[in-house]
């Protein structure tokens, strides 16, 4: 049971008569980098919100780090980190203050928090900017900092919702190096993205179309099954069958 970081069974969410997520069933293995792909409006964000406790599922089952999303939502919160597509640091605070604040939110204090703060500042390379307001930092650095903060409490799983949106290729590359680093520490990474080249970096990817998961496997296997050269090809092939338009 605990080999899986995330397990879902027929998980659904409806808003009125609109079924945003339609009976999805999938597992995410512990320690893997799981790419969660889909066009806009396919239901990715809704699915992710259910797994992180922001939304209650309408039906089905889901366990996150072995805990039931219906009954143990509070316990799940200690075990997960989350970084949203919206930029999520306070830009009128300094990097240090952001770290202190979010660290505090996750119950870090005193020595431990100070230690963590130093470590984090160094690992992101923010020594020069530690007393400057986050507002003045380049976007790439903000995102790296936001990512580092999302795992400040050593969660078992980290959810990244389009973490590299609007970032240049070099910074994206660096960001993925960071993801690998985190994954090597044993943290499961659940990531949604728009960039198909990034999908190739994942251990396994799923592709959502109209609220359902239409494909799920390692990038290589997927390419073999769909007889395609890249994930992008598969994605376009599947997305073309979609009936829903953009949100």
């Amino acid at each position, binding site marked *: 049971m605990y080999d899986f970081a995330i397990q879902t069974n027929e998980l659904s969410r409806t808003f009125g008569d609109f079924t945003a997520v339609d009976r999805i069933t999938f597992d995410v293995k512990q320690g893997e980098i799981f790419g969660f792909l889909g066009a806009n409006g396919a239901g990715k964000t809704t699915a992710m919100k259910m797994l992180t*406790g922001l939304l209650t599922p309408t039906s089905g089952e889901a366990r996150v780090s072995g805990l039931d999303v219906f009954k143990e939502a509070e316990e799940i919160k200690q075990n997960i980190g989350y970084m949203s597509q919206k930029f*999520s640091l306070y830009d009128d605070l300094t990097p240090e203050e952001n770290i*202190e604040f*979010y660290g*505090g*939110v996750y119950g870090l204090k005193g020595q431990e928090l100070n230690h963590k703060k130093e470590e984090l500042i160094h690992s992101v390379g923010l020594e020069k900017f530690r007393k400057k307001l986050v507002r003045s930092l380049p976007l790439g650095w903000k995102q790296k900092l936001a990512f580092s903060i999302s795992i400040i409490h050593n969660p078992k799983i980290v959810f990244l919702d389009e973490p590299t949106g609007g970032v240049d290729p070099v910074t994206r590359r660096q960001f993925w190096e960071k993801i690998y680093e985190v994954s090597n520490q044993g943290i499961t990474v659940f990531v949604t993205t728009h960039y198909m080249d990034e999908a190739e970096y994942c251990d396994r990817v799923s592709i959502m179309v109209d609220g359902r998961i239409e494909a799920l496997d390692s990038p290589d296997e997927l390419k073999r099954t769909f007889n395609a050269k890249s994930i992008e090809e598969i994605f376009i092939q599947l997305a073309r069958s979609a009936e829903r338009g953009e949100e």
Partner: protein
Amino acid sequence: MNSFNGFVVKEFKQIFRDKRTLVVLFGMPIIMLILFGFAIRNEVKNVKIGVLDLSKDAVTRELTQKLASSEAFEFSVYLSTYDEVEEVFKAGEIKEIIVFEPNFSEKLTLEGIANVQVITDATDPNLSNIVQSYTGAIIRDYIQELNYQGTTLQQGIQPTIKMMYNPELKSVNLFVPGLIAVILMLISALMTSISITREKEMGNMEILLVSPLKPIHIIIGKVLPYLVLSVINVITILILAHFIFEVPFRGSYILFFIEAIIFILTALALGVFISSVANNQQTAMMVSLAGLLLPTVLLSGFIFPVESMPYPLQMVSHIIPAKWFLIVVRSIMLKGSGIEILWMETLILFGIALFFMALSMKKFNVRLQ
């Protein structure tokens, strides 16, 4: 608890770093108080008057003298005929003309009755009313004096008027309690709703909701700094009101602050409620201003007395927390009333506070589903 403290510290840092917020928080109360205190007055000063004296005797001269020496009036012109009245008013400078009938003093001593006509420019009905009653008071005073001297006969019934609690009819005494309500509403409700929606807009709220922080901690953490700042504002207003405008404070400070805190909590709850409905700062601001500030100013009795509103509006005013708060604060400040008199209003205010707190908690939680 540690995470909660961190939250409050962060909130204060953000408030103190944002210059615009600071100006609104601390500048506005002072500016509003000074504006209302100095500029917006119901009492009149130096209103120009004209006199058409058809009698020109000792009494009319003395009366004219009396009127002119009052602070309210400034004697401006003698008219010689009725025909000039219209002309003078059209010129606009003069707001009131007093006409003494011919043989004024003779009639007064012989018949005990003499007529004074008071003509006012009623384009500004408020002013016209006040001017009229001032004139009446001055003339009555004079007649009374004459009576003491035994020169005329006492005619009919003479009311003796005593204005209690605010004998000089200073409007600032009335405005200060209202202003406290408006400022608390503005700061507590508007500022919290804006600051919460800002977290939503920036995406911070999602992170907080995914974190182990409980929604109740988030709400209290957001609201507590504004509670503290609101109390500081109340103190500032009281000090200014006392030293600049000499507004009396006759009741108990403890009772006053308890009532103020109940009212602040209501406003904060409304702020939280608005932020759970509004998705961005603009909407939050519009809703707060139109939905809270306007009723607080117009329907609470702050400027317009509730008693003179049409019945449906009076009904509406009952659900406006500021109305009850105003009654309470005016009574405490001006009359020195205690809880034994104000318990009903306090209870209503408390009920409204509880209702909105429950509503906003519920709404805030629902949003998580």
